[in-house]
């Protein structure tokens, strides 16, 4: 447990790690846009309306979009 907490503290204070996380998030969200043919801003509505069938991978994409929205809220 102590090891996990130490690792998270290190990540929290590492700007290079944070930047790489953001890049990864953008890459994943863009890959979802290409795969499902919907801009990220419309993803939730597209799933709710049935335009996109919800799979685990779609859930992962939506969860990434939720993270992006939280980042925007924090900015």
């Amino acid at each position, binding site marked *: 447990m102590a090891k996990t*907490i130490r690792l*998270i503290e290190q990540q929290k204070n590492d700007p290079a*790690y944070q930047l790489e996380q953001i890049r990864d998030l953008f890459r994943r969200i863009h890959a979802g846009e290409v795969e499902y043919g919907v801009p990220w801003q419309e993803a939730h509505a597209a799933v709710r309306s049935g335009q996109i069938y919800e799979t685990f991978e779609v*859930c992962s994409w939506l969860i990434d979009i*939720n993270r992006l929205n939280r980042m925007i809220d924090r900015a």
Partner: protein
Amino acid sequence: MIRRDKYGPNTFENFILLHEKHLREREHFIEENLLRGPLFGEDGSIYIGGLLRCKGHTFLKVEKTIAILANGWVETIDYAYHGGVSFPEDRAIFRFDNAHGVHEHHVFDPVTGVEFGLPRALTREEWPHLSECLDMLEAWCFEYGRCADSGEA
């Protein structure tokens, strides 16, 4: 008697302690732990995701975001737990998720992969933990899968 809400916020230390304990207690069923995290996420939350390969060719895919609250406590805000079986074909068994804001339980026919009807909305008491999904998968494996055949798990 006041009962603590098991889905309510917890201290960060307790959360990590319980996460690791629950996985350790299910090592008899988990064959390979390919989970990433807990990692500090780009949005200031904590992230756990990846795959648990389990006995009887079953698996659990996990995607989970844990918010860090102002007082330093933590709380799961987004999750998707997808149980399936990878042999003879890759098929879904169940999925719990709240990815688009509604807590839902999806059930699938593991022979055809087709979802049984519409997902069922969950009450707060029914929101699952990762450990409960592993228990459900293990029970499924014994009842319908290959765990009983091989004397595994």
